[in-house]
């Protein structure tokens, strides 16, 4: 018979988030500190689900103005044109570089949205104490953490276009308020991914096993 899987928390052991030292926590209440690195240590952080939801909702709210408001104005002698994120993608496509247009579309539109849906899905399944496809959900979380940074792409694009196209009055580029909301989406989704604790995915399976005993 294979030995039963046992989680650290069930044995009274807690992993330090900073140095990954495994320590035995006393049964008494109150704060505990890692003996190696001195940071606070607990079985699970408090209010992980609430905090992650708050960050996701904030990001979802910012996602709307980030896509509706213009992120940049291009000024030439004869015209001034305001571009949203999607306008930038279309412009890239029309000027003949569809692979780049696709990359920007994925990084700026698909990844932030996919991150929001993926994290919401993980939170809902954790709250419903789902025990299905744990491994897949663990992989999904790792994917979210891995690709999240690429949504910063458009922030860099706008920054360097603005920094370079500074030849007033011949031509100039100025950032517009949409980019602030877009940057906020990037930061909030990164914080949301960091705040989620993937161990919650496995907690419900383990409490289920104990109940059946």
């Amino acid at each position, binding site marked *: 018979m294979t030995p039963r899987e046992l989680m650290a928390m069930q044995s009274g052991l807690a992993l330090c988030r900073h140095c990954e030292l*495994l320590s035995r926590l006393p049964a008494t209440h109150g704060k505990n500190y890692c003996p190696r*690195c001195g940071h606070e240590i607990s079985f699970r952080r408090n209010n992980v689900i609430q905090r992650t939801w708050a960050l996701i909702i904030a990001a979802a709210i910012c996602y709307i103005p980030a896509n509706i408001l213009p992120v940049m104005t291009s000024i030439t002698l004869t015209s001034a044109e305001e571009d949203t994120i999607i306008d930038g993608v279309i412009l890239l496509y029309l*000027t003949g570089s569809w692979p780049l247009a696709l*990359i920007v579309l994925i990084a700026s539109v698909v990844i932030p949205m996919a991150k929001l849906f993926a994290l919401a899905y993980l939170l809902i399944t954790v709250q419903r104490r789902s025990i299905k496809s744990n491994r897949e959900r*663990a992989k999904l979380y790792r994917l979210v953490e891995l690709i999240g940074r690429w949504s910063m792409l458009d922030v*860099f694009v706008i920054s360097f276009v603005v920094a370079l196209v500074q030849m007033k009055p011949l031509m100039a580029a100025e950032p517009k308020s949409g980019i602030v909301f877009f940057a906020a989406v990037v930061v909030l989704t990164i914080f949301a991914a960091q705040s989620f604790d993937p161990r919650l995915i496995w907690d419900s399976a383990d409490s289920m096993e104990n109940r059946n005993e």
Partner: protein
Amino acid sequence: MPESPVACPDCDLLQHIPVLPPQGKALCCRCGKLLATNKPGANERALALAIGAAIVFVVANAFPLMGLSAAGREVDTTIIGGAWTMWQEGHQFTGALVGLCAVVAPAGYIGIVIVVLIAARRHRPAPSWVGELLHWAELAQGWAMAEVMMLGILVALIKIADLATVIIGVGMFATGAFIALFAAMAINFDPDEIWTQVQWTGGGARMTVNSTQTIDYQEAKK
């Protein structure tokens, strides 16, 4: 110490890590998270790569990335110039974010890795501030986005290319080299090895530590 169990940081499963052969790695048997590696000399290589990356980083930031020439005028920008123009245009938050991800976080990560590795080589056990720095290194690594910036620069170049003539600067080549060195350093750097050498702060008088007592958890739950 193969006897002392570890907990997977991603799924909290207690397990024993076997003695790993060189270049071997151990994955969590439940969720597949990378738990340990055995790369002999990894931190030696990381130190060499970090020093190389630091030198290239200075060059990448000191020289212009690219310039634009139109109607007899020329403009150029450095890496921090991108962040600074944003700031001046009234977008302080975006400017600060670009500065953080493009300059501050990569520089901080390299700087900390160099200090930590040198301190761990010279002092055994390593002083406890090394542990504090390792914590900051992890934070900085998450926000260091040189490779995303590089792609962003390329997209920006293509957007500008039909407006005016674009001149590629020394900073661009240095940035390319920096990204390669930075990635190689980050792969080699092994904070777990440093952690085993760090002097304990001993802040947990209220807590007994597990590492010496072997847990017979498999037997206990059979």
